[in-house]
């Protein structure tokens, strides 16, 4: 990602005082030819030297734009300063004041749309690699830091239930337990972590990192109830009335697959991204038959969509042995919502991008298996509500691609399971739970709060994490100070 730069070769110690032009430091990783045959993490992360060098690129702005760009307002210049001073554990403390999941966010945040987008250095050259530094600090802490018991408020004996163990639920649990409450996380699946374990692949976010965060919370006293589908085994009302939970935080995410409603979608070999990724990640089907869950190792796979989910799907397909792994996206390259790094990694891995292309029909063979996909070429027209130019089909441009499987990654809706079993919980027309403000997360039902993807629709880890922390504050005020009511 570093642009070839002559400065690169200059000895850095000489120049440091004069504020040399140090280029953005690259993060080394597995060679594409090697990594398409395994599921190990792609980048290795900064070495101490690289991190130090990169940290020296920050000019310590008086009015740091980066903080404005960060959804949870991490004190970025301060933690970078600590790296520069060599006190990495202190840097970790600084980050953790605002972000309890830095090892995760450092890996999956869309930094180029957030802090790094507005970083002042980025005006003239490439911005400071804030995300990579965050990841470095978190990994360093995990390796070298000792378990530090945070300050824990005296036990209050107040029971709080958290529905969903994604970043929103975990963040909220972490805050509430420190505030002295009795916290239980209820999770539908058998492993905690939400999308972090069932959606995002190992090669992008090692599951051991998620487990470490969960273990940390368990050490603080958070209870985890797995295989617990709220709305089935217990409704929200029952949790409150029968089981004595005084407040509930709904962080059940955006877990509803969306299909395109085109012919052929029920053919064998058509999957939602959720199914494909859950098989591979949560169930470890890429290790079949050592693990029991099967997954097909198709040679020609088309993934529909242009976001992170699509990139994860297509790169999984490649690793499972696809010679031809396509991204089919109806807009152009520039509009793809995926993280820049993922698109670049996908390109390096030989993913074939079919831009301005929209599927209209999936073709099957006589036994009901996918044999191809019929698409139509698109062109960009007038801007739509999202401000992006609307793709419109070009008449007569239909064509076929021969494939064995299709993965639909065109978005996620909100799963109605919780809302439909909680009568007085108001949702909007997309099924998202309505809250008063994102800061407090109060729903229409007394004692029930919500945050993360179930409120915003499919968004980001950092926003869900931030919502979880904010709502924890609101729940505390509701329980202890009665400062928030209904």
């Amino acid at each position, binding site marked *: 990602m570093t642009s070839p730069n002559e400065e690169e070769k200059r000895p850095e110690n000489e120049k440091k005082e004069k504020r040399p032009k140090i280029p953005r430091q690259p993060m080394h990783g597995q060679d594409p030819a090697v990594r398409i045959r395994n599921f190990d993490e792609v980048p290795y992360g900064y070495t101490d030297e690289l991190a130090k060098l990169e940290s020296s690129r920050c000019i310590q702005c008086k009015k740091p734009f980066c903080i404005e760009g960060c959804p949870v307002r991490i004190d970025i210049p301060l933690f970078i300063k600590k790296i520069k001073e060599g006190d990495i554990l202190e840097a970790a403390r600084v980050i953790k004041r605002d972000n309890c999941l830095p090892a995760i966010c450092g890996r999956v945040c869309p930094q180029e749309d957030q802090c790094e987008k507005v970083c002042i250095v980025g005006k003239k050259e490439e911005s400071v690699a804030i995300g990579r530094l965050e990841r470095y600090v978190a990994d360093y802490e995990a390796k070298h830091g000792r378990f530090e018991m945070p300050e824990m408020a005296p036990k209050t004996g107040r029971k709080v239930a958290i529905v969903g163990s994604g970043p929103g639920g975990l963040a909220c649990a972490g805050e509430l337990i420190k505030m002295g409450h009795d916290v239980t996380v209820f999770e*539908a*699946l*058998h492993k905690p972590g939400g999308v972090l374990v069932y959606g995002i692949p190992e090669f992008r976010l090692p599951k051991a990192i998620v487990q470490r965060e969960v273990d940390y919370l368990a050490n603080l006293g958070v209870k985890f109830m*797995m*295989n*617990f*589908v709220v709305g*089935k*085994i*217990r409704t929200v009302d029952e949790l409150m009335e029968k089981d004595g939970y005084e407040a509930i935080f709904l962080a059940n995410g955006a*877990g*509803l*697959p969306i*299909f395109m409603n085109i012919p052929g*979608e*029920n053919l*064998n*070999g058509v*999957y*939602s991204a*959720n*199914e494909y990724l*859950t*098989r591979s990640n949560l*169930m*470890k089907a890429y290790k*079949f*038959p*050592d*693990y*029991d*869950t*099967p997954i*097909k190792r198709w040679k020609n796979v088309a993934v529909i969509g242009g976001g992170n989910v699509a990139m994860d799907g297509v790169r999984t397909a490649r690793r499972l042995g696809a010679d031809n792994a396509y991204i089919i996206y109806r807009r152009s390259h520039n509009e793809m919502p995926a993280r820049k790094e993922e698109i670049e990694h996908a390109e390096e891995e030989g993913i074939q991008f079919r831009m301005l292309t929209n599927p209209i029909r999936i073709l099957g063979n006589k*036994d*009901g298996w996918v044999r191809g996909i019929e698409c139509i070429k698109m062109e960009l027209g007038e801007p739509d509500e999202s401000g992006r130019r609307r793709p419109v089909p070009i008449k007569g441009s239909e064509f076929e691609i021969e494939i064995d499987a299709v993965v639909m990654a065109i978005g996620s809706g909100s*799963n*109605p*399971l919780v809302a439909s079993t909680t009568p007085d919980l108001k949702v909007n027309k997309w099924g998202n739970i309505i809250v008063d403000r994102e800061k407090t997360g109060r729903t229409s039902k007394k004692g029930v709060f919500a945050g993360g993807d179930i409120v915003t629709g499919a968004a980001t880890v950092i926003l869900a994490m931030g919502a979880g922390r904010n709502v924890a504050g609101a729940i505390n005020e509701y329980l202890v100070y009665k400062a928030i009511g209904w």
Partner: protein
Amino acid sequence: MYEIVEKKVWFNEIKEFKIKAPLIAEKQKAGQFVIIRINENGERIPLTIAHKDLDNGTINLLFQEVGKTTMDLGRLNKGDFIMDISGPLGTPTHIERYGIVVCIGGGIGVAPLHPIVRAMKSAGNNVISIIGARTKGILIYEDLMRATSNELLITTDDGSYGRHGFVTDELKNLIDVRKIPINLVVAIGPPIMMKMVCRVTEPYKIKTIVSLNTIMVDGTGMCGACRVSVGGRTRFVCVDGPEFDGHQVDFDEMIQRQRQYLTEEKIAVERCKHK
């Protein structure tokens, strides 16, 4: 972890466990299922709840060893544990007073049918049950079904017990010969059996409910692996079902989708046998 407190071997490959799961037992209603995962490397498979015992907080699961997971399951014994059980899942059977209800169970489908028979009976229906098996030796739940139904009819494919023939033969007999004004048919069994039952009842416009057993992963409507076409619409069996109006179900598509992992299943079974 869920403890197996009782194991019953019905026949070589047909086994039944009584499992300690008080919260699930408390909530279970006729027609609902659970998703189990035996161990850390295990896959998630759905099994319908055949029984529950509120006093002891147990549920019964009956299964036939057909793949690697059910074979592994069959090797467990009383005192062993199943790692994960999630449930009760799915929409319960709609129970009301219909009048005359014919409940048809084929193979191990008789087990999940049993709670429905019981609920239909309690709601004041006159329940005629038809249960069928390939041969006498693998007929399950005869006594339970006799005790809960108003009338029990039995068929075996090879004629070793009951009427020689299929459950559909008995059904036709009820309709055409005995001229019984059936208000509802509920059928659970192999897909082909359910399809045939629907074919019999359709011309008479007898409402027919079937319970589908598709491939599932999460069981909460998150993945869509379980989808089927019902009345031309895509539905998720794990949340919208498992029961649907049989006359609307695209059985051929469903049967095709069930076969998706046959190759992989063979590999897994081979490995399992050599253990």
